């Protein structure tokens, strides 16, 4: 039983880790778990709907301070802050899933083919990927968002627009990582030996290269998830997010709270902001820990448990 458990990526990593590294990994996993659970159970946890402005006793009222019926207060638009924060988790998770699913296949396939075949195709793709990679990703996402939705949209429209915009930024990243791995693996003796045996290129790519190159994917996945949250929030903050009636989105709420800050209203910005920071922190902690464990140079090892007793002083003579 333990053997099977040991082969699962994250479980194996927790077992491998020691000391502070384990602490960081476990903390990250805990925060991420809370994040995902909140997203799944948002309808149950949230006191109100994300676009709810009134209940049985009438409208909520705008900019109410925390307390009473509204634990974290209400926004300038009259929404309940706590509910918006909780529903926002769901939006973030859906965007991550869609964006990663869209980009991972394209990025991996392109990186594998480009790295393995090499030549002109490879050079052209590398220059393109590098150019996009070097460009401010938020600007690229804005341009893509304009192209896709013309700027604003419904729940699925908005989520798709955000996810696809982020995909534009991610594909070059997957491409670069998988290509680099492919180029490295291509010169490994086991790939050369498959070539000498006479295995065809598709067989080598799938059997030998792809399986070994994708071992870094959990790591990129976590890093990209945090980036997806930040880009989504950035888009929302600049007004390219999702309308408040379609879904809750933290960046949008922060944008609307800009003017509140000057008048000292802190609850409308603090809580959505903290939600972003915490979710990115959790996911990044997991990603960083996985990175450390994968890299032998960065990995901590336990110190030997032998008590380092001092030698017999009689034996030490100058």
């Amino acid at each position, binding site marked *: 039983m333990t053997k099977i458990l040991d082969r699962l990526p994250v479980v194996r990593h927790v077992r*491998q880790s020691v000391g502070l590294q384990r602490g960081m990994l476990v903390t990250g996993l805990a925060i991420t778990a809370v994040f995902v659970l909140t997203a799944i159970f948002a309808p149950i946890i949230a006191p109100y709907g994300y676009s709810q402005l009134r209940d049985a006793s009438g409208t909520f009222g705008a900019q109410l301070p925390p307390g009473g019926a509204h634990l974290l207060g209400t926004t300038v638009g009259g929404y309940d802050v706590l509910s918006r924060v909780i529903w926002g988790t769901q939006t973030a998770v859906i965007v991550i899933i869609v964006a990663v699913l869209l980009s991972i296949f394209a990025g991996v396939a392109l990186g594998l083919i480009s790295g393995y075949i090499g030549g002109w195709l490879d050079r052209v793709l590398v220059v393109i990927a590098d150019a996009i990679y070097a460009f401010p990703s938020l600007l690229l996402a804005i341009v893509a968002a304009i192209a896709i939705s013309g700027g604003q949209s419904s729940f699925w429209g908005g989520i798709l627009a955000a996810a696809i915009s982020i995909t534009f930024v991610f594909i070059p990243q997957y491409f670069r990582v998988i290509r680099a791995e492919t180029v490295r693996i291509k010169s*490994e*003796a*086991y790939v*050369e*030996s*498959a*070539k*000498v*045996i*006479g*295995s*065809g290129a598709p*067989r080598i790519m799938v*059997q*030998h290269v792809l*399986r*070994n190159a994708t071992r870094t994917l959990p790591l990129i996945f976590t890093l990209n998830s945090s980036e997806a949250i930040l880009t989504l929030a950035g888009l929302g903050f600049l007004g390219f997010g999702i309308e408040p009636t379609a879904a809750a989105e933290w960046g949008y709420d922060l944008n609307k709270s800009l003017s509140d800050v000057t008048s000292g209203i802190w609850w409308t910005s603090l809580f959505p902001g903290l939600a972003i920071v915490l979710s990115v922190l959790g996911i990044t902690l997991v990603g960083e820990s996985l990175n450390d464990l994968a890299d032998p140079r960065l990995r901590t*090892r*336990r*110190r*030997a*448990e*032998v008590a*380092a*007793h*001092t*030698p017999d002083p009689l*034996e*030490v003579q*100058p």
Partner: protein
Amino acid sequence: MKTVVDIRNLEVTFATDGGDIPAVDDVSLTVGSGEVVAIVGESGSGKSVTAKSIIGLLPETAVTRGVILLNGRDVVGLTGEKLRATRGLDAAMVFQEPSTSLNPVYTVGWQLAEGLRAHGKYSRRQARAKAIEYLGKVGIPEPEKRIDHYPHQFSGGQKQRVVIAMALALDPELIIADEPTTALDVTVQAEILDLLRRCRDEFGTAIILITHNMGVVADLADRVVVMYEGKVVEQATATKLFGSPQHPYTQKLLAAVPRIDTTRERTPVAEAPPVVRATDLVIEYPGRFGRGGFRAVDRVSFTIAPGEVLGLVGESGSGKTTIGRAIGGLTKISGGSLQVLGHEMLTVRERGFKPVREQIGFVFQDPASSFNPLLTIAQCVAEPLIVHGRAGDATAARPRVDELLEAVQLPRAFGDRYPHELSGGQRQRASLARALALEPTLLIADEPTSALDVSVQARVLELFAELQNQFGFAALFISHDLAVVDTVSDRIAVLYRGELVEEGPPAQVLGAPEHPYTQRLLASLPVPDPAEQAVRREELRALTTRGEE
């Protein structure tokens, strides 16, 4: 004789994922001034760990116990400034890889002066003068100019000289040389060993020489400490150890060292059309950014007859691996002609060559990377059978795989293991099994034993010879080691900078070499016998002086 190092009951333990592993177990030894003590052993014997513990260079995962008296002071457990003060002054170190032991972004002069200024008051000018002096002493020509050069502007042997100069400049009582010649070609190795001998003779420095090469030991050491699995199994003077080794392990180790024996029996060359015929073969690597290309193989001609083993010898950059890869269809040839099993490699296309691949087996140098880490050994060995349609999948191929594993003397159960669960020697056997799966008529073995310990190497070489007898394949056996090539080859070809300088039966090439390079190569190879090695050293010196005139 003054004692420089006195190690008593040293124990070193490492923490690993699999628990604590003792690396050094109750080791005691001494080194007197002006003495060269060799610590010999195979990988995992704890020889390097013992040496590194003298100057406290072990990683944090290690725990050290015991006493190491360096110039009368116990250095175990020293930390901080006290430990730093002993480094370089009491003991200096020469590392295995000269190319990585110099910082690439600083000049060698800067790095030399830095060591000096870490230990004493030197003005910039004084430090520089001393750096130039020592560069000259270790035989770097034009030291005034070369001092401002960066490491990558030196050759491998020169870099190792620079590292030795850095050690010498601090005038330490002891130099620890950790495999100082392993990364170097055999002709360069002889020069570096000479330099280390001068360190002892002219500077009176004690040397701890860590090596796995018995020839190197015989060449330089006064006394030998043999280590096995963390323990010292035998200590004796060099003459005594090589003359009458006491411990069974030492005896086994010495017996495993390949030796040149020109009287060995060889298979006579068959009178049949050759399996490989190279005529004026040229292989060039294209240059980058419009720079000129690099000619790795230059007008080389040779043949391999059916059932014959051709040994291809040369140092790094000689083009030997390139030739092997070209025959295996991994590198394109640029000119001349190379016929492999009747196919012309200059014009062949991958599709046309695929049926030919069935008849070619290939064994690679690095056993660590020659298997896909995610597949079992059985799946790896079955791959050629599946690719060429002899079996539907790995399960169907299993009976044949078991046969093959048996042929290379591996237990059948190993088929279900993953590559990292096998030792280097076992992996190289499995590699042979994979290469022989289709019963090829030609086998290319590219340095198949150079990453292995000497005793493992002996067993793999033996196995190779047996299999060759049994299956009767022709083979190209590539190696940098003349003695290794001699044990398996029917004919030997010597490559030097892309050109074939000499070719013929071993008795002729090794018994009476004609080309000056072959002569030098042969004379540089140290033999595991101190007395004989002393004679050979003089011969090499005579040869070099003659060459310079």
